[in-house]
């Protein structure tokens, strides 16, 4: 300890302190300040560049996701539209079929009615005509038969005979 104290030189201590403080001041102004600022700036730059890249990446992902979503939506819409169209088509077809059936039935019924009434009319007509024809035939036959007296008598006789037989 005594040796340490005797080795201690006040002059050197003073020089050291003064020179060191000057050095510290100069370095602070001309070296450490600019160096640390530059390094900080650089790091800030790197950090912001990284952040920007990250943002861009996220945005890109968003865009991709968006487009994918859009695509999916479009696909789903197309799908649903197609389905709807199919349903509409089926409905239309079935509606048409139903309608056609109803109409057809109606027409058939009408046709049947018409046919029936026509038939009746035709039958009635035929009956009339048959009656007229038979009257006419009968008239002719009678005229023929009654052209001669003998025959007229014979006829009266036969007729009378019929009547008698019937009675």
């Amino acid at each position, binding site marked *: 300890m005594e040796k340490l104290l005797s080795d201690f030189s006040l002059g*050197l201590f003073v020089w050291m*302190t003064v020179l*060191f403080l000057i050095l510290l001041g100069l370095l602070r102004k001309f070296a450490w300040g600019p160096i640390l600022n530059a390094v900080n700036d650089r790091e800030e730059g790197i950090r912001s560049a990284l952040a920007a890249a990250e943002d861009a990446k996220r945005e890109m992902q968003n865009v991709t996701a968006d487009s994918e979503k859009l695509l999916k939506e479009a696909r789903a819409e197309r799908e649903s539209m197609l389905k709807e169209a199919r349903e509409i088509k089926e409905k239309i077809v079935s509606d048409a079929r139903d309608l056609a059936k109803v109409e057809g039935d109606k027409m058939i019924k009408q046709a049947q009615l018409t046919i029936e009434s026509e038939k009746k009319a035709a039958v009635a007509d035929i009956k009339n005509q048959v009656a007229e024809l038979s009257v006419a035939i009968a008239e002719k036959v009678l005229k023929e038969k009654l052209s001669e007296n003998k025959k007229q008598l014979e006829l009266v006789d036969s007729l009378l005979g019929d009547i008698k037989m019937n009675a």
Partner: protein
Amino acid sequence: MRNTLLSKFLIVSALLMSFTGFAKDAKEAGEAPEKDKKTEIKEYIEHHLKDSHSFSLFSYTKDNGEHVYIDVPLPVILWDEGLKVFSSSRFHHGETLAEVDGSYYKLYHNKIYETNADGEIRYNEEHKVLNEKPLDLSITKNVVMIFITGLLILWIFSSLARSYAKNNNMPKGFGRFMEPIVLYIRDEIARPNIGEKRYRKYMPFLLTIFFFIWFLNIFGLTPLGVNVTGNIAITFALALMTFLITSFTGTKTYWKHLFDPLGDTMPWYAKVPLYIILVPIELLGTIVKPFSLLIRLYANMTAGHIVLMSLIGLMFIFKSWIGSPLSFALAFAISLIEVLVALLQAYIFTMLSALYFGFASEEHHEEHEGEIAHL
């Protein structure tokens, strides 16, 4: 009594450690009393560890016993009833008195004493020099080295700083190698120890002490034979600055912790007897912390120099084909370790300073990381 050739080679190879051949030559130098050689080496080492008033490169002794010093004399500045400035060459390495304005000064064991015209050094009974010592503000070897190192650091880092502006915030030139170290100090020393919010204001000091100590430690390993960081005045100045910064940037929490270490954990009447012991310990701790910095750096660097020089000295004591190369190999290995120690000590000094700053500038008593503070 001196073996001339031997001491010549001792000194030269101590300074220029890489010449193995000299150990071999020393053998031819004839026999010299073993004790003398050892004392000579010891004295040489002691001389080397101390500051000097001239920048000596090497010295040797001629065959006729005349000492030849190859050195650069440095200015001596004394404050002794007025400023006195003269060249250290006037001391002739302590062999002659320097007469300045009617006063006589003698260089004795690297210190300047005022003497009478005969150059008489008076001692007390404990063999202490009684002569008056003027305030010695000389530009010594260490001051020169501080100056050179300071200029070197300033040059390296201001050119690094300028290269950023010119080069779009990218380092260029030699500073490129230094930037990772600056970043290391910021990210591994300042930030974790001081905290994200407050580390900035301490950065200039931390960077300056780190590079200052590191560069001077490295200079200490060069054949220039400087020992700046192994000087108690230097480490004292550095540690004092750490202490002052710690004290002046200390927050309310820090000072409250010093004088009221237990806080609200117990009532005041219980604290009184404890504080009679605790508060002095806490206060002492604030001084012991920087004091440990001072001693650690001083002791490490001094020890490194002593070991290295002793191993080199051993070459001349062994004087054999086995011993001398062996001690050379050992000296070489130790000097490699010393390169590491040079960096390590700079790191430790910076690291611990940052730690102390961190404790002083703590705003709230967050997590007290162990009791590292008391180390």
